[in-house]
């Protein structure tokens, strides 16, 4: 379902304002993108039977096409949108993981037995994603660009080239930053 033309224009307006220096713009955009991605992701996954192949970038592109009025925005706006989408994706995953953990911890009704194997797998992954999210926040405190790179690459599914283009830096820089960020995060989550 395509958004109302007004919504698309509204989003484009927000993106333009952001490029004109309004830092709050992304706060406005986040909920819209979040909802669209969440819907798409779950719709997409539900349609699949087994061996889900889910391409984050495809999802984000689709969301972009749906949400943004193409005529109204330029390339910078577009890459900003992708940055937000990557963050939205991160939030979706973290939210899911948190929900999963909450329900594992307590308050579970004994009404229906949980599929134990499935629960165990998801639980481990849930813990991973939450730990990573927390570490990433710490990283952002002293190296915002690295955190941004990780966000785009890992949560947005961007390739090195796409990440470089999006951030306006060289691919070599992305690669280099990626290595140390990965090492630091790995150490943090294994602690």
């Amino acid at each position, binding site marked *: 379902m395509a958004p109302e033309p007004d919504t698309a224009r509204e989003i484009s307006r927000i993106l333009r304002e952001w490029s004109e220096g309004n830092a709050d713009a992304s706060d406005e955009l986040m909920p819209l993108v979040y909802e669209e991605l969440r819907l798409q992701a779950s719709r997409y996954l*539900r349609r699949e039977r087994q061996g889900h192949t889910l391409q984050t970038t495809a999802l984000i592109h689709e969301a972009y096409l749906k949400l943004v009025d193409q005529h109204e925005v330029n390339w910078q706006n577009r890459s900003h949108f992708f940055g937000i989408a990557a963050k939205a994706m991160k939030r979706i995953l973290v939210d*899911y993981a948190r*929900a999963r953990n909450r329900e594992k911890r307590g308050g579970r009704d004994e*009404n229906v037995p*949980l599929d134990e194997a499935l629960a165990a797998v998801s639980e481990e992954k849930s813990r991973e994603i939450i730990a990573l999210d927390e570490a990433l926040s710490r990283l952002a*405190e002293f190296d915002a660009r690295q955190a941004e790179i990780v966000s785009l690459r890992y949560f947005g599914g961007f390739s090195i080239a796409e990440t470089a283009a999006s951030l306006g830096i060289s691919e070599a820089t992305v690669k280099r930053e990626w290595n140390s960020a990965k090492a630091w995060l790995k150490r943090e989550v294994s602690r």
Partner: protein
Amino acid sequence: MDTDNWKKIKRVFDAALEKESGDRAHFLEEACADDSAMRREIDELLVAFGGAEGFLEAPAAEAMASLLVSTPHRLANGLRIGHYEIESMTGSGGIGEVYLAADKTLGRKVAIKVLNERHLAQESNLERFKHEAIAASALNHPNIVVIHEIGEFEGLTFLVSEYIAGRTLRKLILEKPLSEDEILDFAIQIASALEAAHKEGIIHRDIKPENIMIRPDGLAKVLDFGLAKLAVGAVGAAVPAVPVLDPNHTADGLIVGTVRYMSPEQASGKSVDSRTDIFSLGSVIYEMLTGVTPFEGETLAETVYNLKNLEAENPSRFAPAVSEELEAAVLKMLAKKRGDRYQSMEAVLADLRRILKQKEFETELRRSREAVGVDEDRKSSDWTSVSTGASSRSKTASVAVLPFDNLSDDRENDYFCEGLAGELLNALSKIERLKVAARTSSFTLKGKGRTLREIGEILKVKTVVEGSVRRSGDRVRIGVQLVDVDQGFSIWSETYDRELKDIYAVQDDIILAVAEALKIKLLSGEEAAVRKRYTQNTEAYLLYLKGVYYRWKLLPTEFQKCREYFQKAIDADPLFAPAYFGLSSYYGYGTAWGLLSIPTDEGWLKAEAALAKASEIDDSLPEIRLSLGAFSLVHYRDWETSGELFGETLEHAPNLPEIHHAYGFYLLTLGDLAGAIAESERALNLDPLSLTYSRFLGICLYFARRYDEAIRQFEKSLELDPENSDLLFLLGEVFGRQGMYSEAGSAFAAAMSLQGNAQAAAKFRGCSDEDSLFGAVREMADRNLSVMRSRIDEGHFVPAIGFARMCVLNGDVDEAFEWLRKAIDEHNVFPLLFNTDPFYDGLREDPRFKEVLNDIGFSSTE
């Protein structure tokens, strides 16, 4: 970590990565020099990097896809789907997730199961699943979970069923060994559910302890009929479209269900029939007895091998106390060849029941031999103590009936929903040992967003009957349940799909089932009273229900509508006593309170004629004597007769709030204010949310000159109906007597503005002393007088009491007496109040007032 520090570390780290591992140590020693903290940091990072192969490589969402799928929150907490609100997820499994949700219209909890889309890939699967699930639910079997609805939401298929507060049999088995009595009890309940389903050609195919819920009162409920069928398609093989109702033609070639409880034919992927459920039930009983399933192996393959090739060990090997009969029955159920098993669930059930009887008999025998002392077998387990609790509860059984929800599209059917509930309420009231909350209070609580527990507290009842009606042409679907408000679970529930003409049978069914569920044995005569039918004519009955619906409306214009429907009901069935009674009560009540625009004499004539007809056809209704008493008092001012009739009614129907109201009014007219207050309190106790009784108590207190209490009571009444101008006038009057003029002014102002008279409202609002208040009152009285005069000029009937009161207010005493005398001739309730109403205190010294009282008949009774 600070930014500059990190920049330095990064630089060295990046450079170190460039080096061959052999050169790295040397490089780092130089680069870090004497900064040992940085050296340690970089060493750690390098180690971490070495172990980070694959880390963060696959994009998160892709790696987490299974999480996204298996994790629920497809339905977030608080999400509204139709009239359901998701409260929490309670579980998930292969077939989908289950949520606890609140049904906002019925105020009950439901379970919502969202099915995984992949099982529904084939449209035919979904249809068959729906068909089977609904068919099983429609059996109305107490041991089969009731499905309320199957619907779709944003492309998700979900199934709404009754919420069962209880535990799965799995949980119970894990907790403690079950006694053989309990095992037999559960087995019989499950078998009886399956037998009912089999008779309709529905096979469960996935009987296992996880699919059986046990409520705290010991009632077993079988879940998930039809779901196993859905899973058949899920495996993905081409499944021919199978006629669901033919048990002999099910999908072949597929392994579904839980292997440990599967029948050999199911495990071999052969076609199955109802005998597969017999085998699975055998496995479940076996596990209840021994704690293990009969063919359990270390691995899935081993279990399947055992199932196909080995005979089950005798249960007594694991549980020596098992009775021979039960052991034999279980082994027969577990026969490899289905031809060697019981051939029907009916036969299983018969055997299980026989075994239970036998055991009971033996226990009795043993007990009688032992005469006294504790019998080992009878030591009460958790279960028995719970069920004892249930039966002791019945000693004070109490119930409220809420108006049923109208699920039909048109509001027209509201009357039917309310009417049906009202009829159930009436019938239940005939059961002596059951306390039934009164109509007005129960119906007032509807739709106020209260939980059943709160409703139970307000009405002081432990259980609530609630339900829903979907009407389409001549067919109705009625869902009803009896809910324990403390525990929040449904004690009993049913769904009836019937033709409208069978409505009586459904009502009877519900009443008897409720009585049974509450463990009330009906006394002789009670069942007949409950089942009593006043008409066989459905049309007449429906018209009557419509009449009753409007009869209870407080708004005069709505109230007026009841006449037409009672009359039409009489036209449809001229021997329909309650319709005559309804018509009589319309004329009687309307005339007594000056609500009709016909002269009082005419009103009484019609009221009495209709009442005579009703009692001629059937004089067993207690309300008939009540009406006769009221007519005697208000129409004939015959205190003696009315006192007798009220007395008789009080004796016969002590729990009818109306009689206490009527008798209280009777006492009030006689000046027995303490008695009137006591009676009105009784009425209010029985029907705590009734505006009429609440207001009446206020009036009694006011007449008793207990002004403070009267004010509080009127304020309480206003909480029930904040926009009631009548109450505001009464309140203002009491404030005025108390010398609280500005309060009186604002009460009158509120009343006037509710009546749409902004000008008068403004006048009252400014009042702060006696003079200004009475000035405004006089002005209002003059205006009302002119309005009433023009009403009369237009040919309407206006009760004389209105004129009399306005003349009292504007101080025109002579005119007031003229109207008071006229009012005496109008036989409504108002003259009966002259004796005690503080309103007339200013006239009491006047000799003319004594004459008026004499003419009404007061002197003769004093």
